[in-house]
């Protein structure tokens, strides 16, 4: 098992009602697996929301394999400017 730290922002934070959380996952699981779990936490608000993922402050794709103590940011569509 590995433990990851999750940072929620904007619409994801609102949907999950928390800024941060910790999650235990099986060793070798990918970002895609993580997103499936996250979307199940609030299907109504998260099912169709595009979410990018950053691990340790860099964007990764769904095939990225998570490691113990990774800091994972769930990034809904950004809107700076």
């Amino acid at each position, binding site marked *: 098992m590995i433990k990851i730290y999750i940072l929620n922002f904007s619409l994801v934070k609102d949907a999950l009602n928390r800024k941060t959380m910790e999650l235990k996952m099986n060793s070798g699981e990918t970002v895609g697996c993580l997103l499936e779990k996250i979307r199940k936490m609030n299907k109504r608000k998260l099912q169709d929301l595009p979410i990018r993922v950053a691990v340790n402050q860099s964007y990764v794709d769904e095939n990225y394999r998570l490691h113990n103590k990774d800091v994972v940011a769930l990034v809904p569509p950004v809107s700076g*400017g």
Partner: protein
Amino acid sequence: MVKTDIIKNIIPILPSDDTHTSNGSELQFYGRVRGIENGQTILAIDYEYYKGMAEKELHELGESTMKNFSISKLDCIHRVGKVPVGEASLRVAIWSKHRQEALDAMTWFISQLKKNVPIWKSTIFKNGAHVPSTCKQC
């Protein structure tokens, strides 16, 4: 040369710089908070950001813009936190030999910023409601 920053205070006006003697174009852009959003009066926009990554992405974007366009210098400040109506949330300045390079670079830089830099708007309406922005043209 690229200079980028994310700050929580009012963005200072950038004085025109007479020392860029090899650049014929100095282009400055200020993005300001509009008083109307989706037909409703608003008080401010609250900008949330991912501290650390937002700074990194903004600086890398500046470096990419320098590589992709023939410009001499790019300077950008993004404000975060609560920005009242009328005040600037974004300042970008670009110097280049000729105007077209700066105009093209500015358009690309801002469009990429709005796609990749982890900053999010939340609109504060007159009734006190905070609503995350879903404006696709913002």
